[in-house]
């Protein structure tokens, strides 16, 4: 068997490991093993790559130093990656994932760019065989040209989109407000046309590398303009979508260098990202197009004053503690506010105090609560809250009528009954947690300010709702003290 066949066999093994890894990652018990298998597949693929013909030839010509260089590059990247992963606080997971994702996209852009540069160079080289092959690749509209253009575009959109997502999630002041310039659709349309022209240009004339880099620049701009208008609560969708893009960029890079392990791994990631995107969109009852281009329709805004006037019952920690004392079943509903206030450990203590009194405590997790898919699960797991107590929306909704107290911490739109009752509401039809059906609802919130959707929440004015205005963490601590 030729050495290339061994390499391909190794790639095949890696691809199979990735598929098994994905399968295992969808099961709670097997996920850890899945992650190990994925890493093993990656290690095999990386080792196999070091025996590829171009590397072997360059080692034969230059001695060991190409390998040393690759080792150094791997080491630098590996150490930075490991440091980021270990040092970054768990609460910063969404932005961390966004950032890592962006690096993958950027790497694909560079791979395609490097391959283009070296192929162009080969076309003029002395070895007629290689020159002929390179020239064939560079012919207009070949697989090579098309794939190069697509890699550059998708990779650049991934990288810049991820950076913007990172900035938004990190809540850098400049990125706090969504970009809602009315002209943005025109800007996007202009960029889209430029993109199409440049793709055509790269495909028709691949040896002109400048066009490729222009395409990358336009793709970068597009990555920014597509992500900037997206508001905080839509972030889970964006993270999934960017994740999918980074996979597709890797797959496209696989077409460029004619490597099936890139294509397989890339498309697996692309598929999983798309599925998660669909799940997130469904959880918000919104179309993907709506998330990407619409922003939320804020035309039918009802003023909060009419709804809230005279009906808000603001209470103290002691009063809530009295209600909690008689409760047999309490459901805690966490939202992004919990993550901001870092109140997960305080919540755990409150739950402990309640459980000591013989009360059942469960957690209701809305699929899009937080800023990334499954954000609340990670956050509560960090505080050692057993995952059996974290219940998904469809699972826990029927139990609210039997719930004595529902405590809503830092969540707003996902518990807004207007989604169910008011067909004109911008969030009409969005599946929500039916906390309003609980006997008593306690809402811990800093003020009456609306959530991401910018609409008032009739829940706050409901007869069975008690409002507790305070910072999430302090509020929960006071509550726990009042209870003890």
């Amino acid at each position: 068997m030729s050495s290339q066949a061994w390499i391909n066999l190794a790639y095949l093994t890696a691809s199979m490991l990735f598929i098994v890894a994905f399968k295992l990652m969808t099961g709670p018990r097997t996920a850890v093993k899945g992650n190990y298998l994925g890493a093993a597949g990656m290690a095999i693929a990386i080792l196999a790559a070091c025996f590829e013909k171009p590397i072997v030839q360059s080692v034969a010509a230059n001695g060991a130093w190409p390998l040393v260089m690759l080792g150094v590059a791997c080491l630098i990247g590996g150490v930075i990656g490991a440091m980021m992963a270990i040092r970054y606080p768990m609460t910063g997971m969404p932005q961390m994932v966004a950032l890592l994702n962006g690096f993958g996209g950027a790497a694909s852009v560079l791979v395609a760019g490097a391959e283009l540069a070296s192929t162009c160079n080969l076309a003029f080289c002395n070895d007629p065989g290689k020159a002929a092959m390179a020239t064939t690749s560079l012919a207009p509209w070949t697989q090579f040209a098309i794939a190069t253009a697509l890699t550059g575009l998708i990779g650049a959109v991934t990288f810049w989109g991820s950076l913007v997502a990172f900035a938004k999630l990190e809540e850098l002041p400049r990125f706090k407000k969504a970009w809602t310039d009315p002209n943005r659709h025109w800007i996007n349309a202009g960029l889209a046309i430029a993109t199409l022209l440049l793709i055509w240009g790269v495909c028709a004339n691949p040896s002109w590398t400048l066009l490729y880099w222009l395409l990358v620049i336009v793709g970068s701009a597009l990555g920014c303009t597509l992500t900037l208008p997206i508001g905080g609560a839509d972030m889970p969708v964006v993270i999934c979508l960017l994740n999918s893009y980074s996979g597709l960029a890797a797959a496209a890079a696989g077409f460029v260098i004619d490597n099936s392990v890139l294509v397989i791994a890339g498309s697996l990631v692309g598929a999983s990202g798309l599925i998660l995107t669909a799940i997130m969109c469904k959880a918000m009852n919104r179309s993907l197009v709506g998330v990407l281009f619409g922003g939320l329709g804020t035309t039918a805004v009802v003023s909060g004053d009419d709804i809230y006037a005279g009906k808000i019952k603001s209470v103290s920690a002691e009063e809530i503690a009295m209600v909690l004392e008689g409760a047999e079943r309490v459901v805690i509903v966490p939202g992004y506010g919990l993550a901001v206030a870092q109140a997960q450990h305080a919540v755990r203590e409150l739950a402990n105090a309640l459980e000591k009194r013989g009360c059942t405590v469960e957690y209701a997790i809305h699929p899009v609560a937080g800023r990334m898919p499954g954000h609340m699960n990670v956050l509560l797991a960090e505080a050692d809250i057993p995952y059996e107590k974290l219940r998904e929306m469809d699972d826990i909704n029927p139990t609210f009528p039997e719930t004595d107290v529902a405590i809503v911490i830092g969540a707003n739109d996902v518990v807004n009954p207007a989604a169910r009752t008011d067909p004109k509401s911008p969030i009409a039809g969005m599946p929500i947690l039916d906390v309003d059906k609980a006997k008593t609802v306690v809402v811990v919130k800093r003020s009456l300010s609306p959530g991401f959707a910018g609409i008032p929440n009739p829940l706050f004015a409901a007869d069975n709702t008690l409002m507790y205005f305070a910072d999430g963490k302090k509020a929960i601590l006071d509550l726990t003290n009042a209870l003890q």
Partner: protein
Amino acid sequence: MPHMTHLVLPQLFADAVAVEDPASRFIRLLTVFLLAMWVGFEVITKVPQRLHTPLTSGSNAISGITVVGALVVAGALSTGVSTLLGFLAVVLAMINVVGGFVVTHRMLEMFNPKKK
């Protein structure tokens, strides 16, 4: 010249094998792409909500597979530009790969109460 034929013919044959017609090469990779997409959709149909974040970050690590391409273009030392770009690509892709797997592991450990 029997000697020449002996040398040239296998060479020609080898070239003919190496230079696959671009269209069929494209179709071959497209086949792989579509089948792998299909497998991906089938494997990840129902994911419990709890695993959404680890799945996102784990798949994110796997998208760093582009490191394979980066290693090959960087190690080939074909031109200065391609080597430099390849080197950077290896660094970035490795950040993605190692960071992704480690962070996923950290998260999954948190979900595992026995280990604590």
